[in-house]
């Protein structure tokens, strides 16, 4: 295509380049000269520039932040693996702080563990499911060998195992005496509350090895409690 004067119109590449300013300088001078003499090409380039400018100036669509966050958070929580194996603490570093945290954490967990272990042995006697007293757990300490973490420990693995046990117990709940079921529910709630408090504490101090040990211990206690009830039922 040519102008009325017989000069070829700009190519598509030249028009687009003129519109977004990406032409090389030598070529740009020739294109600018053509545009000043050719109304058709000039108008076309102006329209292209207008589209680009309008697109860049347009307001972005509003983001549904509140609507999306609960699902995002739920996915994060499902996938979250809390590494329960603490990093090695250098000797003497932060020892007093660890001890303080352990005392706090032990206090948080002790109530849950004591209550849970109070009914933790379930046995069949004379064809009935009964609860017998169990030894009361000592408050865990930093050096407590029982709290040594298994390298495979993770909150997700415990939660998966606990959920499996809860699902099984749901099916067998009819076999439990109502007071036993109620006691189990209560003790699970107590342990869950301790776990939640430890998780909160870990959010504030995520690298604290003592809190991680206590959390691991709480998970294990919950799992063991459910296992014993499951076995007995």
């Amino acid at each position, binding site marked *: 295509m040519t102008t009325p004067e017989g000069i070829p119109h700009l190519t*598509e*590449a030249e028009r*687009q380049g003129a*519109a*977004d300013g990406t032409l090389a300088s030598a070529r740009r001078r020739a294109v600018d000269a053509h545009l000043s003499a050719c109304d058709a090409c000039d108008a076309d380039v102006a*329209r*292209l520039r*207008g*589209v*680009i400018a*309008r*697109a*860049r100036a*347009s307001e*972005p*669509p*509003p*983001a*549904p*932040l509140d*609507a*999306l*966050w609960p*699902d*995002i*958070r739920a*996915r*994060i*929580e499902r*996938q*979250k693996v*809390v590494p329960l194996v603490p990093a090695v603490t250098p000797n003497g570093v932060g020892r007093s702080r660890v001890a303080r945290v352990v005392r706090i954490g032990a206090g948080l967990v002790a109530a849950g563990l004591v209550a849970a272990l109070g009914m933790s042995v379930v046995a069949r006697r004379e064809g009935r499911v009964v609860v017998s007293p169990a030894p009361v757990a000592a408050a865990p300490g930093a050096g407590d060998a029982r709290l040594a973490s298994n390298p495979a420990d993770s909150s997700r693995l415990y939660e998966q195992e606990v959920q499996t046990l809860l699902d099984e117990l749901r099916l067998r709940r009819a076999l439990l005496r109502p007071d036993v079921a109620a006691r189990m529910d209560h003790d699970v709630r107590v342990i869950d509350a301790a776990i939640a408090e430890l998780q909160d504490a*870990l*959010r504030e101090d*995520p*690298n604290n090895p003592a809190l991680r040990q206590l959390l691991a211990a709480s998970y294990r206690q919950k799992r063991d409690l459910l296992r014993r009830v499951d076995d007995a039922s």
Partner: protein
Amino acid sequence: MTAGTAGAAAPGASDVVRRAQQGDVQAFESLYRAHGPAVYALARRMLGDDGEARDAMQDVFVRAWERLASFRGDSALATWLHRLGVNVILERLRTAQRDDRRFTDDDADDTPAPRAVADAIDARLDLDAALARLSPGARTVFVLHDLEGYSHAEIAQMTGIAAGTARAQLWRARRHLMRHLDP
């Protein structure tokens, strides 16, 4: 490139980032609220569909949570998130169009995406509606080049198409938008 729609880090953002990296979900939510609008705008325009954009937004921030520990602060978090968002969105497009070949076909036209066709759109379209009627390939190149500031070479690298193809897609997209926005 310039992360065109990404916001600057707020004062004290580094502390929030550090807390989020340590597993603090509340800190991560703060980052989500600060940077979510830019990520959503990117997704909405590249995907041309609100539902798809919402899904992509979730994927971006879940991926960000998973990978936040690898963020070293060499670039602004906004830039890091923006690039992560582009990658996640491109993955979604590739998955959705694996057999479509729009990204690799030089002759790809601006046939409207099926979902966009189903939309009843007025003759006078706003930008987002007009973008939604572009083919995914043309829309992607237009958004990345004209709105987000990526070069053709960067777009070619990210999408796996030739730079010449990206250029042709861009020109086609502009012509399409010109017809609908400036008839």
